[in-house]
């Protein structure tokens, strides 16, 4: 005789019985004929009664027939089909059987028509209870079906594992070969000495900054090219890039050049845009992408104040 397989941790019973109380006599005989080592759920046993006593019956039934047993033997009969509670058990068992074929072991006690077992092999209720118990015992002891890879040779398994490992290790870098960096400017701040652009590179490759400038829009200051204080290479991740200039040129307004104090008074009304030319990949050195970030002029006040001349010629040609 095959040894009884050990119950998986999450199961409490080898088999659960679902039957109508009208068929209890037959089922009790089957139950009695089962070897003691087979744990089975039968709601009429004292043990089951003690367990479910005072609890929500519906929830308990759903729990047992859904989660607690490896198999469910359903004893179909006229009474079974008519009873409210057995219908609930039947519904739960059918749902589990869809995910786990072979879960429901049907036994037909009379000539009731049961559509859901039309395509299943069922056992006739004329079978003596002892014989049915043996059949149930056999079903429980039958080794579970093994997946197809169980039958592969060790060499094939090793090769397959190696291929899988190689795919995991090299697939991403291989895909990344064809992906560029992907940069964006997330924030722009300033001190007296430098503009700091927070640049995010979401791509797998380094990006290169190939040009950067401040555009002042309606503020009367000429647009200016900025110089990088550090490296122009932006590795993947988030980086603060410092940019400097040593001169900001006021523009003429109303026929004359504005000085620093006059320009400062306009800060709250305007915005300034940082433009950065980014080469997203070294594979195409000629191609660059323009990234911009517009911030209130007041954010860059310290920098602009430092590099706009305080004294402007009164008679500059405008």
């Amino acid at each position, binding site marked *: 005789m095959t040894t009884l397989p050990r119950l998986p941790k999450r199961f409490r019973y080898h088999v659960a019985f679902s039957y109508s109380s009208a068929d209890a006599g037959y089922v009790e005989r089957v139950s009695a004929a089962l070897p003691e080592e087979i744990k089975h759920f039968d709601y009429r046993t004292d043990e089951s009664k003690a367990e479910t006593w005072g609890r929500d019956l519906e929830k308990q039934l759903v729990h047992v027939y859904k989660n607690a047993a490896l198999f469910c033997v359903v004893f179909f009969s006229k009474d079974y089909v008519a009873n409210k509670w057995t219908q609930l058990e039947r519904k739960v068992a059918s749902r589990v059987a869809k995910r786990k074929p072979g879960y429901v072991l049907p036994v037909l006690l009379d000539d009731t028509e049961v559509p859901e077992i039309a395509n299943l092999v069922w056992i006739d209720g004329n079978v003596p209870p002892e014989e049915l118990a043996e059949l149930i015992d056999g079903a429980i002891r039958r080794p579970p079906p093994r997946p197809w890879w169980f039958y592969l040779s060790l060499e094939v398994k090793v090769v397959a594992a190696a291929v899988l490992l190689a795919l995991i290790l090299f697939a991403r870098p291989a895909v990344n070969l064809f992906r560029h960096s992907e940069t964006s400017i997330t924030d722009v701040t300033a001190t007296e000495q430098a503009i700091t652009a927070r640049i995010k590179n979401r791509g797998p490759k380094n990006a290169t900054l190939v040009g950067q400038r401040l555009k002042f829009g309606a503020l009367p200051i000429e647009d200016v090219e900025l110089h990088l204080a550090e490296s122009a290479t932006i590795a993947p991740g988030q980086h603060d890039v410092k940019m400097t200039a*040593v*001169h*900001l*040129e*006021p523009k003429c307004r109303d026929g004359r*050049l504005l000085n*620093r104090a006059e320009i400062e008074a306009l800060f709250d009304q305007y915005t300034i845009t940082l433009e950065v030319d980014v080469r997203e990949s070294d594979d195409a050195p000629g191609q660059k992408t323009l990234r911009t970030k517009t911030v209130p002029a007041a954010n860059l006040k310290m920098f602009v104040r*430092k*590099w*706009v*001349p*305080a*004294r*402007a*010629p*009164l*008679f*500059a040609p405008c």
Partner: protein
Amino acid sequence: MLRYLRLASAFFCVLLAASAVQAQITTSRVSVLVTGKRCGELKKVFLVVNGEDVEDRWIRLESAGTCRWTADLGEEGSISTKQSYFSLRFDDFARTDCHRAAGNAEKLVAELEFACCADTPLRNLRVKTELPIPVTYVRDVRPSPTTRVGAIRCTEYGVLGAGSGAIAHTQFASEDVFLQLGNAVPQPKLPGLLLDDIVVDDGKLVLTRDGLVYRLAVQRAQGKSRTPPTLSSNAISVDSKKLSALKLERAEIEVLK
């Protein structure tokens, strides 16, 4: 081969020099080099920035070695090397033409070079009006022919307080000085009384209102008022009416030194 190398090195030097001149910076530090035989004699050197020719706006330079001078204009005095222009006043004996500075982007210093000094007469003028009226002056300064590089034509200006004041370091050989009577704010594009050909070295020139109208008419006729020569009677009437409205009786122009 050697010739080509020399040519290439000369070209490289020119490129370097050009790039140094083209650097534009905002700075408050100025470094001045004065060339010429007399540069060692200079005791007091003043910097005039952007043509603001008012003595209390002059900046006294500090000696930084032989013929070298420096100044710190302070945070509130920072200038642009692209737009700003400068001239010097030396003690009481000379002035220079106007120059733009070369920006030294590494040291953040505006670098200037002037030649000292033109051998042409220098005059300090005193102007007085009765009744006291607002008077301004505009100086149209030409580059000195002896200057090698960097000189520009420029406009300097000043305001005389309460009807009297001085115009220092005039050098008529290299500048035109226009007196603008009745203007509180100097207007470089408007004509004025050209002082260059009416100032007398010995004594004081006193001009009545009619005398002023006459001098202005003569200068207009000679094309010295920044306009083509004209004998417009309308312009004479306008001058006469304007001076009457200002209640100007007379103007005195005296050479102090």
